[in-house]
């Protein structure tokens, strides 16, 4: 079982594994893999703690009930699966600042966390705006040959590449 302890697998082995996993979710659950809906549901659950039943009157939460559903369990599972994988390979450790960021912008944790919050707001809003993320559109949608998903992926990459170059090649230069 040495392969379970490896730090990294071939990206092709991982990709084929994810592809096969998508066969299983289509057959067993009638669902494509997708992650960003779960975050909208979770945000609704948090709002419900403060505002109670009024939260459920929002049209968005009528469509995507803030409840424990298949996609929320999927996201919980991802945390567990990645934890187990990192534990087995000895890579689990608490870190505040990724090394590429630290090499360019320093290892202070506050700037990195602040930027992560800003990026998260944009990403969370963008994912719900486009109705999918790198998994829902990027993998599950493109494999179904959905027109919306191929356009979405092109926009994800265009926006991402331009922004990454601005951050690291202009600000970080």
């Amino acid at each position: 079982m040495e392969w379970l302890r490896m730090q990294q697998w071939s990206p092709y082995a991982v990709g084929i594994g994810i592809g096969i996993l998508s066969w299983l979710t289509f057959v067993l659950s009638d669902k494509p893999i997708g992650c960003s809906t779960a975050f909208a549901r979770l945000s609704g659950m948090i709002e419900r703690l403060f505002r109670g039943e009024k939260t459920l009157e929002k049209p968005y939460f009528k469509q995507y009930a803030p409840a424990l559903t298949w996609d929320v369990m999927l996201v919980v599972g991802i945390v567990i699966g990645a934890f187990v994988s990192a534990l087995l390979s000895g890579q689990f450790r608490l870190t505040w600042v990724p090394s590429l960021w630290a090499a360019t912008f320093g290892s202070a944790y506050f700037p990195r966390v602040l930027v992560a919050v800003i990026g998260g707001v944009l990403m969370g809003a963008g994912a719900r705006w486009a109705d999918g993320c790198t998994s829902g559109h990027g993998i599950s949608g493109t494999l179904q040959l959905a027109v919306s998903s191929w356009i979405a992926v092109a926009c994800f990459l265009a926006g991402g590449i331009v922004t990454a170059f601005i951050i690291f090649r202009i600000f970080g230069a």
Partner: protein
Amino acid sequence: MLTKLHTNRRLQLVLGLLAGIAFGFLLQKGGVTNYDVILGQLLLTDFTMLKVMLSAVVTGMIGVHALRSLGLARLHPKSGSVGRTVVGGLIFGVGFAVLGYCPGTISGAIGQGSLDALIGGMVGILLGSWLFATFSPKLQKPVLSKGDFGPLTLPELLKVNAWVVVVPAAVILTTFLFALERFGW
């Protein structure tokens, strides 16, 4: 179609959890739960993310369409519009580069101990999702509904059998992956 299984709510929650565990394990083993790998892709210096995604797409595309032809699965293409897909996709892309994780890989990053993902990115994604959920009715008419094309698929657009698109798409994507390796990416 395993309809009886699909409507068993409790069992579906367990299956969702198991699928997530497998997905998270694979993402971590692929290295894509790391900020450095994601940014490496967006800076076009490390093509790991694209290799993982495209091999998943080729494998998934062939298998899911075969299952569909056998009557064991049905497709769920998302509907889109210019106002939703293009505008939302570009906002997502900007956030993707600023955060350095996506909604799936951030969950994996949290699992491997990245605190910028847990304390920073996760809070941001929840806030951003909530903002969209709250203000989307106001965006509906002026933005989201513009240029609607519905849940269209490429075979429907071209008015051909799905396999007429699946086979060439698989060949093109696989050739692209071989070319990436050939040129040392």
